[in-house]
């Protein structure tokens, strides 16, 4: 097992009430490609920027293991504290999604690639030019491109320039933020291949951020799956694709269209109900549970779930008030417009029926009180599941389904059987 190069510990980034990145921890090993996958708005791009301190984190630590001088023994530097940050920038770089907006339109290619070299006083004059030409050749471009502006180049060529700029200072660690999603497939293939070649030649470590599972499969060694600001699963790529543990990873993989028309998979795709939770006011407990088909009593049901249910089935008949978003306490009273009598009987009937049908939402209700014609409903309090190592080494999952199960049991039965209980309820 090779050494750790990058460490992220309990990292948080809040934009006001929006929890873009919410308590994320992972480690990246030297020479690997670590994939970060998730749907739009899950916080993956923010995470990519926060770990390089391009955005100030709200809380948490990020470390890089490197040596700043040649011959020096590698040690751990604290990026979040800004320890020798300027020198550390040479060791970590980023390639952005849209090459049209990440390259300065008023600079020629020579200056774009040369800028980091000048800033860090690596070379100047003719030597600088030689280095730039060399870099251009590494990314598959020619010397003649030195004098062009970025708008004269095609999308693929621009992305090559962005990559050349990123590797100019001989970094060890590169964040690739959707580097190919703005490109056509035939160009995308070329860029991915280039990135693989560079990784081999320069011994680079990548954090590859993407929403495309097939790119993850092509590029990565290990993968972290993100959902609404949280990492829900970290796993070796093969293990994840063969047997995803977290229900969200499972849904993500099953929704992937097959590229072989003789083996269509769409009919078997797991269709998620509902919409992605808002990171500004996420549901209580596990953020995925309102959409999860394996959800059971332990998932952290709260006021939001019951409120959604009541609005769906009772419409405007009742007024609701939750103590706070994502809380475990809900207050219900008859709305002024309609008189339903007596509300306490109705609600307790509903709850009793729900419990009888073994609906997890109602099973999780702990107490029901009637105070002055208002019904107070209390849920069992349950915190969000932690990302814990399960089944085998380096496999992490954050899901309550596995909390009660031994590793042996999960392995023996596989996810489908081991979560059977969840499915029944």
């Amino acid at each position, binding site marked *: 097992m090779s050494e750790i190069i990058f460490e992220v510990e309990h990292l948080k980034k809040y934009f006001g009430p929006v929890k873009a990145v919410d308590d994320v921890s992972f480690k990246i090993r030297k020479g690997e490609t670590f994939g970060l996958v998730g749907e739009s708005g899950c916080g993956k791009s923010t995470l990519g920027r926060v770990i390089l301190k391009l955005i100030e984190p709200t809380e948490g630590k990020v470390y890089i293991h490197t040596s700043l001088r040649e011959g020096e023994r590698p040690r751990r530097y604290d990026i979040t504290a800004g320890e020798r940050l300027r020198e550390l920038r040479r060791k970590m770089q980023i390639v952005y999604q849209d090459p049209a907006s990440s390259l300065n339109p008023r600079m020629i290619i020579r200056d774009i690639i040369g800028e980091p070299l000048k800033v860090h006083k690596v070379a100047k004059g003719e030597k600088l030019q030689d280095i730039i030409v060399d870099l251009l050749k590494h990314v598959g471009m020619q010397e003649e491109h030195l004098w062009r502006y970025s708008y004269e180049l095609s999308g693929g060529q621009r992305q090559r320039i962005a990559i050349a700029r990123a590797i100019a200072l001989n970094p060890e660690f590169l964040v690739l933020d959707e580097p190919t999603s703005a490109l*056509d497939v035939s160009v995308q293939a070329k860029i991915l291949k280039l990135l693989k070649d560079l990784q081999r030649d320069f011994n680079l470590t990548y954090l590859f951020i993407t929403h495309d*599972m*097939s790119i993850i499969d092509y590029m990565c060694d290990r993968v972290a799956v993100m959902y609404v600001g949280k990492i829900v699963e970290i796993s070796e790529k093969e293990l994840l694709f063969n047997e995803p543990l977290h229900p969200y990873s499972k*849904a993500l993989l099953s929704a992937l269209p097959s590229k072989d028309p*003789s083996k*269509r998979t*769409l009919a078997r*795709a797991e269709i998620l109900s509902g919409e992605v939770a808002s990171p500004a006011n996420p549901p209580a407990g596990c953020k995925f549970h309102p959409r999860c088909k394996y959800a059971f009593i332990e998932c952290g049901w709260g006021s939001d779930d019951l409120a959604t249910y009541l609005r769906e089935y009772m419409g405007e008949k009742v007024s609701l008030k939750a103590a706070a978003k994502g809380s475990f306490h809900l207050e219900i009273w008859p709305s002024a417009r309609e008189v339903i009598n007596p509300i306490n009987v109705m609600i307790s009937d509903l709850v009793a029926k729900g419990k009888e049908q073994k609906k997890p939402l109602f099973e999780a209700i702990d107490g029901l009180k009637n105070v002055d014609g208002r019904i107070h409903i209390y849920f069992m309090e349950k915190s969000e599941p932690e990302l814990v190592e399960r089944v085998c080494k380096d496999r992490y999952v954050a899901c309550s389904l596995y909390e009660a199960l031994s590793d042996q049991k999960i392995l023996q039965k596989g996810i489908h059987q081991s979560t059977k209980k969840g499915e029944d309820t």
Partner: protein
Amino acid sequence: MTIIQEQIPSQDEKILVIKNLYLNFGVYQGTVKVLDGIDLEVERAEVLGVVGETGCGKTVTARSILRLLEANAIVEKGEIIFEGGQNMLNASEKDLEKIRGRKISMIFQEPMTSLNPTMRVGDQVAEGLLLHFGEDMIKKGVELIEKEKPPLSALHKNILEREINKPNSLVLKIASRIPFIKRYQQYPKLAARRESVEILRMVGMPSPDRIALAYPHELSGGMRQRVLIAMALACKPDLIIADEPTSAVDVTTQAKILLLLLNLGEQKNTTLLIITHNIGVVAEICDRVCVMYAGQIAEVGSVIDVINHPLHPYTRGLMRSIHNIGDKSELEGIEGNVPILLSPPTGCRFHPRCQHAMSICSKKKPELKEIHKGHKVHCWMYQKE
């Protein structure tokens, strides 16, 4: 739904035929030769995919069917025949209005920008119903009055019945200006709005009665896309053109929308023309596929033929640029860049990037030749001069 009477499908198998379509865009620098002899036949009740990379002319082809092109578009020559009858390129604006939405409808690319931000979602869906099924909506309005007996019901009913018999009578013109009495107009709208709730329900919208009252900005991307689909389906068209229906949504939502499109196509016997750059989408839901490159059709055939046994060098390159999960082989991509269509390559437009290019390729355009049943290729490798 009861408003729409069953249509008698015409005997013609081909619902749409595009013949030898040449289309240019006039720009400051000259003319951009966007479409270079497009030949395409769409069969009734099939799902046809059109794939290609950015700028290959797939969206322009689709928009030219409904004549939704920008002012600088010039059709040089060609025909677009719909249901064996009219040439869409010569049709008058009045005829087009009858076809758009009713016979052919379109699902546009950007769910963010193609909905009206100042109109409630339900009203936007109802708009097409009121336009194409105005009379049905009036009848429904009369039913509504009979059922709910609102104030002035007898009078309003009377006026609406007149409207069915004599749509342009003087009485109506006067009635539509008198306060209280002019409220008869709201009943057809109300009926259409109720109908739109049903259509929203059909596209799998959760609690459609509430969503119908929402404005587009209140909905997520996937829900907006479903509203667009509902609008396209409202008048039960024969042909639905979906322009990149899933490129703005995430994979889990994509699966939802694809399943929806597929089921609707099967149930209603509707023909679907799907324009996309995503081979996965084509492989999952299309019966036939047409590959376009730089304004020319490279290859047409059944999905299995084209994707699993591609013939055209471009299609082959495309397939080698896509990674299949679990596949260990390296990606290759295609050398070179897409040509600039201000001065496109002569002959086959792919020849500057083609590994198999011969001298003839730059001189003369090959035919779209049928190699075996239904599988046509536009390449000199498979034909002689």
